[in-house]
């Protein structure tokens, strides 16, 4: 049976269209269990943004967890070989603590991972699919791109203790110039470096001019090589229709012990938080003793239903009234006939106040007819 996509909820529609987009590039769907050994998360707790995890004992006494994250499981289990790339996507629920309610929440996530020999082409393909994913959600979108090496390269060169480093990092993430200057003053960081940090925070998003500034302020080899990588990347994505949707923003940062290289975050107009996030995570692969690269992203489907509610049609097209003497099979045929004409039908003996409908009809003496006075 063909089903009209319009009838689906926003998150259902998005997830179907994303599957199609990912499969076009040969990504295979990966299905996994909802549970995972708790020790996986204990060993990699900095990879997860939230530390609270729902745990329980299996019948043989092992401590299991409801998955708070999918990437860790995929990275652990991948069979990718050197010189090849394994391309997977997943649609799963994860369980995390919601920040505001302080309750565990089931979150629908669709994501994509490429693991193995990651070259410029694979990077382009993954970022392109991230952009396409955002466009499926809303035509008004942006993708923020950053490079882990650029900011960590700068912070490493400072040779400050981890406390100061943490504070400076926080200032960069929240675009907080005033506190950054204060911290730098206290830590006696030289003026040139402070100026450089300021410029990093002040970058106004435009990719090309941002790249130019980044090249000018690169203080060391690590920063320069990050800029080179970004330049190569920009040249490759320049031919796609999405180049105007890219922003360069070094204030997005992920955990430095897992991520390296290009990272990104996607925003759409109606949703107040990032709906997509991802990046290059070779260091995580190395932690599982896998000498290979990896890049991927995840789209948070959970917020879509709420913020795009107005697009959704509520209820049914026709409320069909019938009385007790009706012949069940005749009524059923009438409903099927209306279905075939493209209507959603709800049958009821009296006008229901729980179902929203556009039109009301009645079924009497084997015929569907208009209702004169409701």
């Amino acid at each position, binding site marked *: 049976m063909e089903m009209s996509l319009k009838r689906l909820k926003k998150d259902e529609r998005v997830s179907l269209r994303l599957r199609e987009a990912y499969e076009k590039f040969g990504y295979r769907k990966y299905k996994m269990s909802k549970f995972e050994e708790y020790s996986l998360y204990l060993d990699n707790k900095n990879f997860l943004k939230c530390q609270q995890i729902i745990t329980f004992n299996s019948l043989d006494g092992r401590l299991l967890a409801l998955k708070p994250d999918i990437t860790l499981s995929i990275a652990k289990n991948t069979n990718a070989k050197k010189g090849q790339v394994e391309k997977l996507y997943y649609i799963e629920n994860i369980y995390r603590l919601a920040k505001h309610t302080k309750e565990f929440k089931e979150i629908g996530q669709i994501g994509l991972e490429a693991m193995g020999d990651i070259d410029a082409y694979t990077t382009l393909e993954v970022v392109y699919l991230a952009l396409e994913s955002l466009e499926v959600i809303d035509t008004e979108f942006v993708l923020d791109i950053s490079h882990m090496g650029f900011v960590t390269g700068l912070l490493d060169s400072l040779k400050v203790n981890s406390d100061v480093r943490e504070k400076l990092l926080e200032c960069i993430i*929240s675009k*907080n*110039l*005033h506190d950054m200057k204060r911290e730098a003053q206290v830590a006696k960081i030289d003026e040139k470096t402070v100026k450089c940090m300021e410029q990093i925070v002040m970058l*106004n998003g435009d990719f090309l001019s941002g790249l130019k500034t980044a090249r000018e302020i690169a203080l060391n080899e690590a920063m320069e090589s990050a800029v080179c990588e970004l330049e190569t990347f920009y040249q490759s994505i320049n031919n796609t229709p999405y180049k105007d949707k890219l*922003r360069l923003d070094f204030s997005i940062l992920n955990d430095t012990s897992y991520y390296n290289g290009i990272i990104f975050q996607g925003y759409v107009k109606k949703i*107040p*938080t*990032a709906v997509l996030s991802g990046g290059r995570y070779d260091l995580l692969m190395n932690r599982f003793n896998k000498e290979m690269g990896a890049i991927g992203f995840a789209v948070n489907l959970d917020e879509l239903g709420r913020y795009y509610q107005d697009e959704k049609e509520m209820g049914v097209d026709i409320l069909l009234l019938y009385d007790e003497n009706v012949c069940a099979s005749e009524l059923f045929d009438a409903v099927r006939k209306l279905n075939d004409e493209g209507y959603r039908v709800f049958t009821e003996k009296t006008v229901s106040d729980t179902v929203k409908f556009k039109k009301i009809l009645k079924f009497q003496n084997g015929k569907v007819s208009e209702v004169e006075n409701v």
Partner: protein
Amino acid sequence: MFNIALPKGRLADKTCKLLKQIGINTDEVTSDSRQLVIKDEKTEIQYFLVKPSDVAIYVEYGVADIGVVGKDILLESNPDVYELLDLQLGKCKVVVAGREDFYEDKERPLRVATKFVNIAKDYYASINREIEIIKLNGSIELAPILNMSDVIVDLVETGTTLKENKLKVLTEIIPISARLIANKAKYKFKEAEINELVAKLSEVV
């Protein structure tokens, strides 16, 4: 054009004065109206007057693009927002205070009364001191007077209230002032306008 969340009370008045200085009309906001949403038709700016501790929530949920909030509240609730400018308004300090005759017994955990639970926890964790938090919502100064707590962690502007209650500042934890914050996603789509506002404001603070 913008939705701005302002904290009800003195800070809203001071912020309005600043906005006026850069040519944004805020006459209707300063008048003592009971309206919670005030729209300036000319500039298309919408103001929400909300409880000071809720400003960051309105901004984080994106119903307000930007907001004005005390650094104390940012430190306490740690919202995921951009902190774009120090407005230098409502200056005060978060301090540890105790009775004038306070003498710290280091052999047992320190009882700390405060409404800033996270700031207090972070501070004492940074100096490795074990504490017991007593969360209060107002009149914090009463706790050490009645010997319910050893010290308090609270905001101090002039120190008059402390003095009147025979309390003294023991340590200053952090200076506080009002900050201009922005929702991260809204910032991406209104970057030019928000940056222009920040640039203008930074000239008058």
